[in-house]
């Protein structure tokens, strides 16, 4: 981050503080309706805007001046798009009248209805919405700490890590081996590792055709598996080897110095190694007591209110959303439903039972897209797949169908980015 950028962020923080103080005075008169949203990603920014449009006083807490989106960041790794096309800011959100505090939220006190920020100041709320995304668990895979991520990037939070992994791929000689470590469920973007392998295979095929990919997986099956594997055979024959859990794919230790991955059955090394480690809900969810022993946040499927903390709602990747995958599409859909529920609750009305949609596109090649979709509603306290709906793209389809889904994938990204940040 440049000095100029930091200065600008500070000035904006000061302005946002003043705006927030003004809002406090106004809402004190109205005696209700103050909502704080933590996290300016696809879930949080969506929810903040929806709440504002429902006439509520909204403060959005987000430390980063620039948000780098994960969807399509695999295409950045493959050299198919510049990282700038992934980057967004909160200017339009701020213009809508939402007070933005450019700090990290470090703690929440649900009893006092207060969020504490890193400078020690705090924000009071009637309802708190947490959309913190994920944290990488640097304590979960022996040998994989923050320093190791500088050698074997995870690139599972887009930004510097994405650029680092891209540089490593560019520097790799033709004939080299790329090794990916894929995590057990649940984790952000279930089809993401396999889309990543596909697009890196595309890069190798077009630039370094003697190179190979090895995926060491802690699972025996994965999202859109039949579609991915059929496409790999068709587009990248002999290039990608997937080692499942039961074939010895689970990595139990890593050594960053030698780029070595240890399984129960042996050792692997790669010229470029991408470790996608275990994850948990972002720090504020842990500190706010909204995460359970799994590291994720149990929620009420109607309101997204935490099962553990009253008046705290959790949306997006951090939540345990039943059948809904941890995707940007899910976060966006949840942000809107959560905003409607929060508005109802603050009016003293019963929130309506929602229905939500998720659609996740993956690119196997620039002109080859596949998707999985689902429709969800609360059933027995859990967001559950509506029977007979959803599923993946057909396993057999003409190239025109795959090309059309690739077009829709890009269109989806443009649309959602405009809705959330435009």
């Amino acid at each position, binding site marked *: 981050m440049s000095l100029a950028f930091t200065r600008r962020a500070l000035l904006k923080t000061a302005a946002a503080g003043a705006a927030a103080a003004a809002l406090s005075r106004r809402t004190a008169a109205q005696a209700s309706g103050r909502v704080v949203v933590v996290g300016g990603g696809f879930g949080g920014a969506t929810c903040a805007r*929806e709440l504002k449009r429902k006439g509520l006083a909204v403060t959005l807490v987000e430390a980063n001046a620039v948000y780098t989106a994960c969807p399509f960041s695999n295409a950045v790794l493959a050299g198919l798009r510049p990282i700038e096309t992934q980057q967004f800011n909160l200017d339009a959100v701020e213009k809508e009248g939402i007070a933005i505090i450019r700090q990290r939220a470090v703690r929440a006190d649900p009893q006092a209805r207060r969020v504490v920020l890193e400078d020690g100041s705090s924000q009071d709320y009637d309802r708190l919405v947490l959309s913190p995304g994920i944290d990488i668990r640097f304590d979960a895979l022996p040998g994989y700490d923050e320093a190791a991520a500088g050698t074997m990037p995870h690139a599972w939070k887009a930004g510097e890590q994405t650029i680092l992994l891209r540089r490593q791929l560019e520097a790799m000689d033709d004939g080299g081996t790329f090794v990916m470590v894929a995590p057990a469920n649940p984790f952000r973007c279930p089809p993401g590792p396999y889309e990543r392998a596909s697009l890196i295979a595309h890069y190798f095929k077009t630039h370094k055709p003697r190179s190979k990919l090895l995926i060491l997986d802690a699972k025996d099956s994965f999202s859109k598996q039949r579609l991915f594997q059929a496409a790999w055979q068709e587009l990248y024959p002999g290039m990608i080897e997937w080692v499942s859990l039961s074939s010895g794919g689970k990595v139990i230790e890593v050594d960053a110095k030698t780029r070595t991955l240890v399984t129960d059955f042996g050792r692997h090394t790669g010229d470029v190694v991408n470790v996608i480690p275990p994850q948990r809900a972002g720090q504020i969810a842990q500190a706010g007591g909204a995460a359970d022993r799994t590291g994720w946040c149990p929620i009420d499927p109607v309101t997204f209110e935490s099962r553990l903390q009253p008046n705290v709602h959790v949306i997006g990747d951090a939540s345990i959303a039943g059948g809904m995958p941890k995707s940007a*599409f899910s976060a*966006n*859909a949840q942000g*809107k*439903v959560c905003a*409607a529920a929060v508005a109802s609750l603050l009016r003293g009305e019963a929130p*309506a*039972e*929602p*229905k*939500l*949609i998720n*659609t996740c596109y993956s690119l196997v090649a620039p002109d080859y897209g596949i*998707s999985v*979709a*689902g*429709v969800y*509603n609360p059933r027995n306290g859990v967001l559950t797949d*509506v029977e*007979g*709906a*959803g*599923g993946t*793209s057909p396993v057999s389809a*003409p190239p*025109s*169908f795959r090309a*059309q*889904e690739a*077009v*829709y994938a*890009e*269109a*989806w990204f*443009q*649309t*959602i980015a*405009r*809705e959330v940040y435009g």
Partner: protein
Amino acid sequence: MARLASVLTMGGMMSVAVVVMVKTMPAAAQGVAPPGATSCSGCHGPGVSDAAVPPLHGRPSEEIVAAMQEYRNGRRPATVMDRVAKGFTDEETRAIASWLSQQP
């Protein structure tokens, strides 16, 4: 390919219709969104006339209902909407379509 071309052309035509609708629509017509309705704009963003995925805001309710019925019974070619449409009953679809038609 002919199948896809027809879908795209239809999308294009509808987008033109939507642009006209938006300009004549009263800005305040919103109301409470029925279950499922707010998810649509994740793909069907409002107001972009040349979008690959047609906008739905301000589009006539009966068109949306008819399209969803055809997606459900397989009479309309689809990539993903057949899978989504099957998650909604006729009644739910009518409520969603009515709300979408009133959005600016």
